[in-house]
């Protein structure tokens, strides 16, 4: 069956090590979440504070970019080197982004300007 696997009991030490590792990883995720909340606050705050749009627009786009990379690599586990075909997935995601960007640019500058 596609979902068959060998069942192997871990040693007590290994089990406790893994539990601890999971807990540490979860704490890191909460820190990442705090950073995302902070970036969101910052983005809304600079708009409400009423700085020059020439500064705000690139700044909040940068914040959005940072937040998305954080989501992809922490919450969506792209940082997990043991993920199945993770190299293929990363290549696919980033080359896809590079291909779609000129398409996006063409839309907003040429097609309907």
């Amino acid at each position, binding site marked *: *069956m596609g979902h068959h*696997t060998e069942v192997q009991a871990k040693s007590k030490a290994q089990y406790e090590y893994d*539990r601890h590792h999971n807990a540490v990883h979860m704490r890191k995720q909460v820190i990442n979440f705090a950073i995302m*909340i902070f970036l969101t606050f910052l983005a809304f705050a600079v708009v409400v504070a009423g700085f020059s749009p020439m500064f705000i627009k690139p700044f909040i*786009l940068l914040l959005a970019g940072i937040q998305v990379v954080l989501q992809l690599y922490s919450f969506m586990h792209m940082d997990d080197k043991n993920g199945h075909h993770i190299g293929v*997935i990363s290549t696919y995601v980033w080359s*896809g982004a590079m291909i779609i960007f000129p398409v996006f640019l063409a839309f907003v500058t040429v097609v309907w300007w």
Partner: protein
Amino acid sequence: MEETKFTPQSWPNHPEQATAEGKNKFVGIWIFICSDIVLFASVFATYLSLRNKGPAGMEFTTQSLFELPLAFVMTMLLLTSSLTSVYAMYHMKNYNIKGVITWMSITVLLGLGFLGLEIYEFYHYVHIGFGYTQSAFSSAFFTLVGTHGLHVIIGLVWITALIVRNAKRGLNLYNAPKFYAASIYWHFIDVVWVFIFTVVYLMGVLG
């Protein structure tokens, strides 16, 4: 088929990718997400080209229409629901089905809150005359934000179905990849929303 009974000690470190089926699901959900990115890139580009454009009377603009407090609350709800599904995956790694179900349920509740606010927002716009067919701007806006809302609905139905089907069954290597794929999809919904609140609402208020 004989079901393998796991204990916390025999539960693998990567239950979502311990089987061939789980590995395929992991790659599969990512391929789906990449194609979904292309879909969103085109509706984003359409929106950016057509925002604040007619041909109907331009009594509605992004500046007069959008309310930042509502967008902020929606953002917080969705961002928090992203964290709660991370908690669900943490409990999945520790072979704790109760934790998975509880945190996935909280995720669904937060998602429902988000959806409720979005429905309220759309209802309000239509009520004041900013309907789908009002202008090129309104169709582009509803298509972009509505496509995201549709993704939220699909995600909620998906996760709810997983909770209902697996609450009593317990965790195994057959349903662990299903929970994992749903959580990756839910994060992706949040990723798209990050761009929506930045590009549509924040930059919309700037004009």
